[in-house]
């Protein structure tokens, strides 16, 4: 607490204006050995002790002195040791003074000796206890220091481990993010793979189709290049405007039929090619493309030398064992 605070309290103390707690606080400060405040208090107390001089003087009654003198004649001034502070005498001081009469003086002296001896013994005991307490305190301080150092090391380790855990957590997070990214990429690639597989399937189908077409074209090319190929022309009958030709290699037992200008097929109908030996033998059925062209690649057709004619009729879908519909084309070998 600021010393100025006490200095300000002194003036109020001198006139008795402090609250009890404040008064106690200041007295503690004074007894603690302050070198400033006691002198200041002395100045102020001397000052305020002059205040009654400012009052109109009232003489004490004449008989008062005799009454007082009579009273003091029955008592003697107290013989207690001089004490610096009247307030500190209190109950103990009064008790001691009561025992300080001549009647009690020997007993009082003996009592004082006992008290002093007891006090000395108690002081030694207290000193011993104090020394023990100081040693215990030093030991506790050492233990506390060691514990503090240990705690410091543990804190460092803990901080280190927290850093490691933090790094691992960061690494784990990064790896998790990478896994998630890979997963997304994998999904994309899987989708792309599925798309590629779909495209591959389509390409394979296309490729198979193209291979089939190529094989047909190879057959056609081989048929066209063969020196033994025979060409048969088919002409449309009166009710049919179409025409056709048939290339046939008897040795290979294969051939190619190709039609032009046949009427568009009604729903549920196909054209059917017949080879006529003794009776019509079905060679195959065909439809028409956008140019109203029709084709049949003929394989394993035997007894070509015995075939006298080829004819095309309109038949129900799937064909028939024998011609049932209108004959549109006819040609002789």
């Amino acid at each position, binding site marked *: 607490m600021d010393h100025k605070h006490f200095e*300000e309290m002194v*003036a*109020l103390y*001198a*006139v*008795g*204006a*402090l*609250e009890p707690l404040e008064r106690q606080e200041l007295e503690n400060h004074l007894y603690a050995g302050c070198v400033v405040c*006691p002198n200041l208090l*002395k*100045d*102020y*107390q*001397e*000052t*305020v*002790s*002059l*205040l*009654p*001089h*400012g*009052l*109109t*003087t*009232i*003489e*004490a*009654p004449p008989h*008062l*002195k005799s*009454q*007082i*003198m009579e*009273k*003091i*004649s029955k*008592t*003697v*001034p*107290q*013989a*207690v040791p*001089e*004490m*610096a502070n*009247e307030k500190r*005498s209190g109950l103990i001081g009064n008790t001691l003074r009561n025992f300080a009469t001549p009647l009690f003086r020997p007993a009082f002296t003996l009592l004082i000796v006992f008290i002093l001896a007891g006090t000395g013994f108690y002081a030694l005991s207290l000193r011993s206890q104090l020394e023990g307490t100081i040693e215990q305190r030093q030991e506790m301080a050492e233990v506390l220091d060691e514990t503090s150092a240990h705690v410091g090391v543990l804190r460092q380790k803990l901080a280190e481990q927290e850093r490691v855990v933090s790094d691992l957590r960061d690494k784990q997070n990064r790896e998790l993010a990478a896994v998630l990214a890979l997963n997304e990429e994998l999904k994309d690639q899987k989708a792309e793979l599925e798309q590629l597989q779909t495209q591959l399937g389509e390409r394979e189908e296309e490729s198979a189709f193209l291979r089939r077409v190529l094989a047909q074209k190879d057959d056609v090319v081989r048929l066209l290049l063969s020196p033994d190929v025979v060409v048969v022309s088919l002409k449309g009958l009166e009710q049919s405007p179409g025409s056709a030709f048939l290339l046939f290699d008897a040795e290979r037992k294969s051939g190619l039929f190709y039609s032009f200008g046949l009427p568009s097929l009604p729903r549920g109908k196909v054209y059917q090619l017949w080879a006529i030996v003794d009776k019509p033998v079905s060679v195959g059925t065909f439809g028409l493309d956008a140019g109203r062209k029709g084709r049949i690649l003929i394989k394993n057709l035997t007894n070509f030398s015995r075939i006298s004619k080829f004819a095309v009729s309109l038949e129900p879908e799937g064909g028939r064992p024998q011609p049932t519909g209108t004959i549109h084309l006819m040609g002789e070998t």
Partner: protein
Amino acid sequence: MRRQTPLIISPDLVAQVAHGDRDAFSRLYDLSSSLLFTLAKKILNQPDETSELLQEVYVEIWQKAKLFDPNRGSPLSWMVTMTRSRALDRVRSKGWKSRILTEHLDDSSMAQPVTSGSSPQESVEYRELKETVGNALRVLPDEQCLVLELSYYEGLSHREIADRLQEPVGTIKTRIRLAVMKLRESLQSYWTQESV
């Protein structure tokens, strides 16, 4: 008989009293009784109570003279302090109420010119002292004079004064402090003389 004045009371006189010297005590009474009676009467405001109190005070002075410490103040300061303390104790124990607010600045107030109350028997030095104290009080602002009177003669704490005057505690404390400091400057020559 020329009445003795308490301008200076020697610590040696108190020391003689402490050794049971009744003549010394008689002289001590002559030097201080008017002042202490005036003070006690101011606080108690009842002649019979004042006489009774003064008997107690002087018996206590007789019994406790040995306790007087000249290093802590003058004999007069010691006796004035004791008288004031016992008088205020008596007021409190009997539950008497304050009367200062209604009597402030009247005939009994601190600021009253002391020349009217001075006895022709008093010494010139004592009249000068009373006049100096009266002048020192007169130059104080009324509010400082009032809080000084309430604290010193009624024994009120600064908080009780603040409650009574409906003023902040800090204001009251400042007024008391300023009043005491001004009095200290005005009366320095006397209290240094007293405490020699």
